[in-house]
């Protein structure tokens, strides 16, 4: 389509070569650093291959036994933990972000100092997650500043041991995930709301719609594709949750392994050099992500098709 104006057929063929040359480094790097490793990860998942003391057992082909072991043992618990931690952070995140996006873009409300607010709420997204978790660990430890402040304010009589209680640990992880991501989501949703034709809002106002009617009947349906996109990327990000719970609980996920996520479980197997089990965990994660991608791609493509028509 973009063939050069004076180009003969021969000339455009010689340009095609450049297309391959230019995309080659990307695909070579992708093949070496991701495709081949993925293939060998899948391969290892069918083997008994671990270290016991100084002895290396395997690799012996054992078929699906790693998967059977996984599904009957710990995996459901850790997948459940991961999903629960994601939901605890995501629900407040999407509600607050929608609210802020609507407020920031409301022409009658005219929020001042928007650049300042946006700068502040996006900032936690750039913080090193491991350092952020370490900070929370120090602040919320049994004799840390938060407990000290709560006691001196008379709210508590004795320190609340956040990291020894299931709700406290999960709550802190959810709070960190919320803080790190709500600014990002707000900015994305704002861009979506600002993309809506202004005359729709004006017409609705003239017709006497209340702000909540405008929100549910105009804003929400029109930003649905972006909402779906935000939810899916957030879900995939949630499945990768690692840094925050790993550092906060020192890799143990305690109390009662309530904060051990899928990637933490994978990480434990890799450090103990149980390659068979690590492979099986990876493959299960890969399948979940692949399914998610396909489901989401379908729904977003439908939306786009409808919008174009």
């Amino acid at each position, binding site marked *: 389509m973009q063939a050069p104006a004076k180009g003969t057929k021969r000339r*455009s063929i010689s*340009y*095609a*070569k*450049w*297309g391959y040359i*230019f995309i080659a*480094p*990307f*695909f070579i*790097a*992708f093949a070496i*650093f*991701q495709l081949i*490793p*993925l293939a*060998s*990860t899948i391969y*290892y998942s069918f083997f008994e291959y671990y270290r016991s003391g100084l002895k290396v057992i395997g690799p012996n082909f054992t078929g699906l036994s790693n998967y059977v072991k996984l599904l009957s043992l710990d995996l459901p618990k850790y997948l459940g933990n991961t999903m629960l931690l994601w939901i605890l952070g995501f629900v407040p995140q999407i509600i607050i972000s929608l609210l802020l996006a609507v407020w920031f873009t409301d022409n009658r*409300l005219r*929020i001042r100092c928007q650049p300042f*607010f*946006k*700068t*502040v*709420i*996006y*900032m936690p997204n750039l*913080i*090193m997650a*491991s*350092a*952020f978790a370490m*900070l929370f660990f*120090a602040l919320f430890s049994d004799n840390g*500043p938060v407990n*000290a402040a709560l006691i001196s304010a008379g709210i508590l009589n004795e320190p609340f041991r956040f990291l020894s209680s299931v709700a406290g640990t999960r709550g802190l992880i959810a709070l960190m995930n919320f*803080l790190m991501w*709500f*600014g990002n989501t707000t*900015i994305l949703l704002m*861009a979506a709301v600002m993309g809506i034709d202004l005359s729709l809002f004006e017409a609705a106002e003239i017709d006497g719609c209340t702000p909540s009617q405008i929100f549910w009947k105009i804003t929400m349906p029109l930003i649905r594709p*972006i909402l779906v996109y935000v939810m899916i*990327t957030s879900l995939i990000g949630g*499945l*990768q949750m690692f840094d925050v719970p*790993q550092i906060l609980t*020192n*890799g143990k996920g305690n109390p009662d392994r309530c904060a051990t996520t899928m*990637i933490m479980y*994978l990480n434990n197997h890799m450090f103990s050099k149980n390659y068979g089990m*690590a*492979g099986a965990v*990876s493959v299960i*994660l*890969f399948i979940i*992500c*692949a399914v*998610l*991608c396909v489901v989401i791609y379908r729904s977003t493509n439908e939306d786009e098709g409808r919008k174009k028509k």
Partner: protein
Amino acid sequence: MTTQAVKDKGAEHSRHELLARRIVSYVVLAFLCFLCLFFFYVLIINATRNHYQIQRGFSFLPGKSFMTNLKNVLADANIPILSGIKNSLVVAALSAILSIYFSALTAYGVHAYDFKLKKIASAFIILIMTMPTQVSALGFLRLMTNMKLTDTLIPLFLPSIAAPTVYYFMVSYMKSNLPMEIVEAARIDGSGEFHTFNHVVLPIMKPALAVQAIFTFVASWNNYFVPALILTSNKKKTLPILIAQLRSADFLKFDMGQVYMLIAIAIMPVIIIYLFLSKFIVAGVALGGVKG
């Protein structure tokens, strides 16, 4: 007239309602800003206080131990902070350069040329964009072990050549900002394809390159999972691993002033970059819509 009176009443009612909504929204915003800033405020305050002051409780005023804490952190042999900063900087800078250059190159290849596999290639990159790299971490670790690249920084930046999200941003940017007429004109002037890319296309892409360089730098600076698998010797470790080490050591034996100082050192460079470029970065987030 009565209709006029009704209208006035309605207008007054909606003015009150607007005021109420405005108050609610400012209160919520102020609370969220407090949440975002409070923890960092405590971090900075505590980094300037010594261990005993911190143990005694929280204070809103900074102490006088900033330099002492800094000196202690730098002198601590168990946590090689200087080499940590250097390693993190090297990895993050090289990742940023490699990912923006090669992503722009790939995007230009797809944008500017027609070739048989073009559609498949671009669809493939978009499809893998959301796939987490952790799923192939085991194979990656094994491969790096076989190639004798563990405990080096190479496996941490070289894979950045293939960065699907950066590619996606570049392609979208080219679609709206790179007219092919410019490329045609360069060709007529006798510029080779690589020369055109380096000297005509890249300058036009500068804003996109800068935004993505910042994002890649930050992501790499903050990365913990893969470096923790690859790096084993103290001298090679990056900052997030040192933070993790701090967490797994016996916490109570630590000088808390040092702990807060180390966290501040890990976080502050990014915050300082951000404070200077926040407008630019926030605009980049809204523009791209795609980020790791």
